[in-house]
């Protein structure tokens, strides 16, 4: 019982209090530990948690394959994808590059010509200056995925160059360099899959806008109107909407607000249509066609809605959520909330 319950709880309370009041303690040793080492430990354990997540996923997929549950064939793809990522991360580096040194005199022009053609750059001149500029050896700015391609290119250079050798980026940095298999996997597998999953949502939002977003009460009306004004105001097409269209929308808005107070349908319709006609006549007389007033342009209205009413709602929500998180963190730090430690 001590090992399973008490000690983890002591860790939570101890680390929680230390991190919280670490912000106030003045002596260097404690502050150094809290701000640097403690955060480093947090990052290291967070990395192990990521490994745990990956292994968990792997376990689930393997069970699905072994037990031949529904759609188990697709789990093979998941395991194969995971294996490919590990292979590109730990076993096959790629990112090979070539360094050349002491080019035979007079051959510099030919060498920089070959390099320029490989990097399909227009003039070999700036490569020439770079080669002259480099002290002992010059690293050709091209990374080859496979050693085979690199060797092919080396043959073209060997006759003109004294020293030439094939190197590859150090382990660890290969995970970010352009020519590595890992980078190829990121650009050609993770990017399209990740990005397209999100792009699907645009379609779902569109069909939901048509079939689900209804003005069922005054709150939903406020929400949809604010959303529409924001969507139109934030894109260039917003400034094309003429002032009289905006005034019609305003009159409809006033009609919607007045609706609960005026029972009679006919009177309400009369007020709204009358208002629109007066608005337009007044507007054309005042010459709004040439210089439309700021108040009747969607982008300006959108700026105001964004900066004040929406801001107020956002601040109220932010304080509300922050209080919830502060209360939950407080319960965790004094050890009241044990469910957080898991099953």
């Amino acid at each position, binding site marked *: 019982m001590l090992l*399973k319950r008490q000690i983890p709880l002591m860790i939570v309370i101890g*680390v929680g209090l230390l991190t*919280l009041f670490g912000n106030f303690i003045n002596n260097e040793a404690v502050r150094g530990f809290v701000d640097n080492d403690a955060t480093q430990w947090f990052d*290291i354990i967070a990395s192990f948690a990521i490994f745990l997540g990956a292994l968990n996923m792997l376990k689930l997929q393997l069970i699905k394959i072994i037990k031949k549950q529904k759609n188990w064939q697709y789990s093979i793809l998941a395991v194969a994808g995971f294996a490919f990522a590990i292979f590109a991360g730990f076993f096959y580096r790629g990112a090979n590059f070539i360094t050349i040194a002491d080019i035979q005199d007079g051959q510099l022009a030919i060498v920089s010509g070959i390099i320029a053609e490989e990097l399909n750059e227009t003039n070999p001149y700036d490569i020439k200056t770079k080669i002259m500029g480099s002290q002992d050896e010059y690293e050709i700015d091209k990374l080859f995925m496979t050693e085979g391609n690199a060797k092919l290119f080396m043959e073209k250079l060997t006759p003109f160059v004294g020293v030439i050798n094939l190197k590859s980026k150090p382990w660890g940095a290969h995970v970010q360099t352009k020519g590595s298999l890992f980078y190829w996997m990121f650009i050609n597998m993770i990017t399209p899959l990740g990005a397209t999953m999100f792009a699907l949502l645009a*379609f779902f939002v569109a069909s939901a806008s048509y079939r689900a977003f209804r003005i069922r009460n005054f709150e939903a009306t406020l929400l*949809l109107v604010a959303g529409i004004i924001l969507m139109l105001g934030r894109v260039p097409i917003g400034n094309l909407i003429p002032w009289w269209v905006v005034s019609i929308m305003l009159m409809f808005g006033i009609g919607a607000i007045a609706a609960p107070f005026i029972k009679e349908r006919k009177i309400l319709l009369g007020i709204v249509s009358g208002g629109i006609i007066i608005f337009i006549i007044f507007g054309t007389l005042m010459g709004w066609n040439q210089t439309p007033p700021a108040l009747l342009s969607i982008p300006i209205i959108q700026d105001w809605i964004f900066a004040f009413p929406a801001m107020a709602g956002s*601040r*109220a929500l932010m304080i509300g959520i922050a209080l919830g998180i502060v209360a939950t963190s407080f319960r965790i730090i004094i050890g009241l909330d044990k469910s957080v*430690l898991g099953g």
Partner: protein
Amino acid sequence: MITAEIMGAWLVVLLTLCIFSFLYKDNPFYKAAEHLYVGVSAGYVAVISFWQQVQPNMFGRLWPSRIDVDDGSIFTSVWYAIYEIFNFISTGFGVLDRSIFPEGGIKGFDEIRFIYLIPFILGIFMLLRLVPKLGWLARWAIAYIVGMAAGLRFYGFLNSDILIQIKASAIDFTSDWGTIVNALILFIGTLTGLIYFFYSTEHKGVVGRLSRIGIYFLMIKFGASFGFAVMGRISLLIGRINDLKNYSSPEYNYATPVISVLIIICLAIWSFMDGDKKKESAA
């Protein structure tokens, strides 16, 4: 000539169209792409956090490069002997070339920090959660993460999301009428918004009316988030269709048109066969 570049482009188009095929119906193409994504992204995140954090910051601190740390004592040579054992295991008993544990220690830090054995052990405890019998050890590691996250968030949210927001509600009465009115709207909106999330009294009478005004401000805020959410999703769709457009050029051997025709044909065949199967099972 098929280069890695063109092969990559075709793969991008294939995977993009497989995911988009979900719009027609949940079909084998979508399931395949989805499961591939689950596998690859899990592996990807694990590799990145190993090479970016665990190897340089943990192993790097336990076994820094020996030259600047070696004081010739037996203890250091024993310590680096362990390092060699780790390397022996990690290179598949000497088969592969050295990768995770380079020759003579990891460059980066200049002193051995034995205190970093603690996160190393806690990290291993975290992995033990997979072993049913020893699963409880993981709680120690989770406790550290939960405790520190609570400490960080208590201070961070209280300071930035409450104290500074109170300070921000101050109104500059010397400025022009327009700013004062707007600042008042902001102030009233925030107060009434907070009253809506109040649970200690019934929302009747004055409190009821104030909370109604509060919900109106909240609804305008949700309207703004609704507008932004639609805007964001459309931008991402534009990004994808722009990629498909770029990859339909001859430079990539017309990847998009060719693959989309192929997928449409396969989908038609599949849904035709799938239709029969359903009829049989239904009959």
